[in-house]
């Protein structure tokens, strides 16, 4: 663990953002957030999905306009308008998805738009020389004339950082830089970041790996639901408290809110049993048992592998290890269609990209899965389609004047209900839900939870992935805790409490203990 030396005088503030606000129609993605960055400091920016991290970064880099608040760099107020403006002000960002051009050479990437020229032509030799020299200062000794795509993600990452720092050397924002790096690569990156810090750069480090937060950063800002939760010194913030800040729960609260009285963990033959199911580079081997009339909850931070378990169970990705047993028979799922044939349904996390078919009507969205299951030849008669749609609109209280409205006009909660209706229409035995209540207002939120409980009580098997710890604890019969793309524990019966889940998520498996 790096324990930063505490200087006698606090380091000067490089960037101060005050009251940053970003309003989308119907949603306030960022609500009066402050961020203070000091020279020579690595600052972790943490929060779950929808916390507002990406929006905050986009406002700082000028990728999106802000609706309120000020940004000052070195005491001068700036108004970044597009990436160019932010770079001129000294703010540069490097993303997990490397936004360099793989078809260009390393040097071309470093100097795009500002290539050294001679007689009006690009001075290639000098550009390659300068590029190689620049990279050497970042600990990379490579041939800068080779195409970027020749190099690993880790090296490309370092090149992106070199470009960013060379362009503007005050604030460097790193958005999930370690998500696709292995341990050794992460160490290389950390060494570089520490060097840059010591040179006086202010670094924003966004990650979902808590170990890395404690290994690298000096200060932490936590966001939740678009608001600032707090800013703390890393050394003074215990891991458990950090997780609680991110999830919005006091770690000691023993809430059994809405919990069913004393149900034993389900026994007997499970409907679906996953044994050591996994896929290389996706998620490590995990076990899961799904029983009719019971809920298996999955908890874990963003990027913990929680979503990936669902992808394997629904055949979106094909497992390359372990076994999946349904009705006592081993099955291999090669596509979602295989899973649907077995009576599975899946509500994905990203409703907009993976869920709704925007442009089609609510009715068409509701009947889509059932129709796909029946095949193209046996079309549901229009009367039956309307009947189905009206039935679920009423049953789930989807608020719309009629079923023929385009689905994208619905609010998030109602879109989620329509997606639920899509799967309920197929009469599934197992329903997999990834963050069913994310981005949904409070009222609809409670309705969806009630609905899930109702489905469970009517004998459906449910697999619910959620970062709402209290809810997961309330309705789950078992809880699978994921961490670092691998299972980190299974809670059963009375041991399921929000505090226990938070503990399992936060547990430092390197047994070093918080510094």
């Amino acid at each position: 663990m790096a324990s930063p030396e505490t200087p006698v005088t606090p380091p000067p503030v490089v960037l101060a953002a005050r009251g940053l606000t970003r309003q989308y129609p119907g949603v306030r993605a960022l609500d009066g957030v402050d961020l203070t960055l000091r020279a020579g400091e690595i600052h972790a920016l943490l929060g779950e999905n929808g916390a507002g991290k990406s929006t905050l970064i986009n406002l700082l880099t000028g990728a999106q306009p802000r609706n309120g608040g000020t940004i000052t760099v070195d005491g001068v107020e700036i108004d970044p308008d597009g990436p160019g403006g932010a770079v001129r002000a000294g703010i540069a960002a490097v993303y997990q998805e490397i936004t360099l051009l793989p078809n260009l050479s390393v040097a071309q990437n470093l100097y795009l738009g500002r290539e050294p020229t001679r007689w009006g032509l690009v001075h290639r030799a000098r550009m390659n020389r300068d590029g190689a020299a620049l990279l050497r200062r970042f600990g990379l000794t490579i041939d800068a004339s080779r195409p970027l795509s020749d190099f690993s993600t880790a090296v490309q990452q370092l090149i992106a950082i070199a470009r960013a720092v060379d362009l503007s050397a005050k604030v460097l924002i790193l958005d999930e830089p370690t998500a696709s790096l292995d341990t050794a690569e992460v160490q290389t990156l950390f060494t570089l970041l520490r060097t840059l810090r010591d040179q006086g750069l202010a670094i924003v480090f966004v990650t979902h790996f808590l170990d890395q937060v404690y290994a690298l950063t000096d200060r932490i800002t936590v966001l939740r639901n678009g608001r600032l939760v707090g800013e703390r010194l890393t050394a003074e913030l215990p891991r458990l408290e950090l997780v609680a800040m991110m999830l919005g729960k006091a770690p000691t609260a023993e809430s059994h809110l809405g919990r069913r009285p004393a149900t034993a963990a389900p026994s007997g033959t499970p409907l679906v049993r996953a044994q050591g199911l996994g896929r290389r580079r996706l998620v490590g081997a995990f076990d899961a048992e799904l029983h009719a009339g019971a809920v298996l909850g999955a908890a874990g931070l963003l990027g913990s592998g929680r979503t990936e378990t669902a992808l394997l169970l629904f055949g979106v990705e094909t497992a390359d290890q372990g076994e999946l047993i349904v009705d006592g028979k081993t099955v291999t799922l090669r596509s979602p269609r295989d899973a649907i044939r077995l009576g599975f349904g899946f509500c994905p996390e990203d409703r907009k990209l993976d869920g709704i078919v925007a442009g089609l009507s609510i009715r068409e969205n509701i009947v889509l899965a059932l129709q796909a299951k029946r095949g193209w030849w046996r079309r549901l008669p229009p009367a039956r389609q309307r009947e189905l749609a009206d039935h679920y609109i009423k049953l789930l209280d989807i608020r719309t004047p009629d079923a023929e409205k385009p689905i994208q006009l619905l609010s998030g909660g109602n879109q989620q209900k329509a997606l639920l209706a899509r799967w309920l229409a197929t009469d599934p035995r197992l329903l997999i839900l990834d963050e069913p209540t994310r981005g949904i207002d409070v009222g609809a939120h409670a309705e969806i939870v009630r609905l899930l409980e109702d489905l469970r009580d009517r004998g459906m098997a449910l697999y619910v992935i959620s970062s709402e710890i209290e809810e997961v604890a309330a309705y789950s019969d078992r809880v699978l805790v994921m961490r670092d793309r691998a299972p980190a524990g299974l809670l059963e019966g009375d041991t399921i409490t929000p505090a226990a889940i938070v503990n399992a998520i936060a547990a430092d498996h390197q047994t070093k203990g918080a510094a």
Partner: protein
Amino acid sequence: MSAVIQRLKAARPQLALLALALLVNVFVAPGFLDLRMQDGRLFGGLIDILNRGAPVMLLAVGMAPVIATRGIDLSVGVIMAIAGAVAAAGVNAGLAWPLAILAALATGLVCGLWNGLLVAVFRLQPIVATLILMVAGRGVAQLITEGRILTFTEPHLIAVAGGTLAALPLPVVLALLAAGLTGLLVRATALGLFVEAVGTNPRSSRLAGVHTGLVLGAVYVWSGLMAALAGLIATADIKGADANNAGLWLELDAILAVVIGGTSLYGGRFSIGRSVLGALVLQAMRTAILRAGLPPELNLVLMALVVAAVLTQQSPAFQPLAARLMARLKNKEARV
């Protein structure tokens, strides 16, 4: 009944365009709307437009589902030439006419299957996948006709273009039947829903269990079949297979017809009926220019302008602008 009215309502822009084009026809050629019966067949300006427009109608019927999946089929003109060549070579080689026609249609299916395979299985961009056949196809057609215009005298094959059924020219009957059949195929089954779902959001569709590959492949196969039928009509019309000119540039007419029919080039909702109307608009424009004694070349320029207008109207950049303009107009009205 209400469904019919709703469909007519949705087709208002296309109907208005068609009415406009027909009106110009009436203006330049009085008596354009006259219909007369002669030897059991209807004659008149309207019939003429239907008859001349039949091949592009067929192509548009095949192209509309392709464009709805965010695809494009550049090879339909070439498939017309190949299918025509196969039919002509068939009857000249002594094949019975039904067999020759079947062979031509089968050729279209095979060409469509090739395109579908490249798009759905090998995941080539549609424009690239169909470009291959577009480049090589005329050579294949010329190979079959051996570079000549392969004339034939088989009366049944000629009747495909010259025949009469139910007082209408056979091409009109064939095109309307094909349009009807396609409409039935996409709307009476779930294919239409799947095509629109895959064209709008392929990821969600796959997760909902739609066999996206099959849907993608099927639309190209159908497009190939429609093109082969159009090729038969074009070949029968001149009583010979012209590998060089049969269907030349007609893929563009078909795309334009579908675009005028209101289908977005970015996929999604499509309508067979409106695409047919789009084809008729193009033909009516062409006829009007001819009847007005204007150079037929003007038609190309006019077509370009119509498409430019449609593209501008469809463009994502234009829509907020239009909305703002509308709002401003409304404000003005409110103030007055």
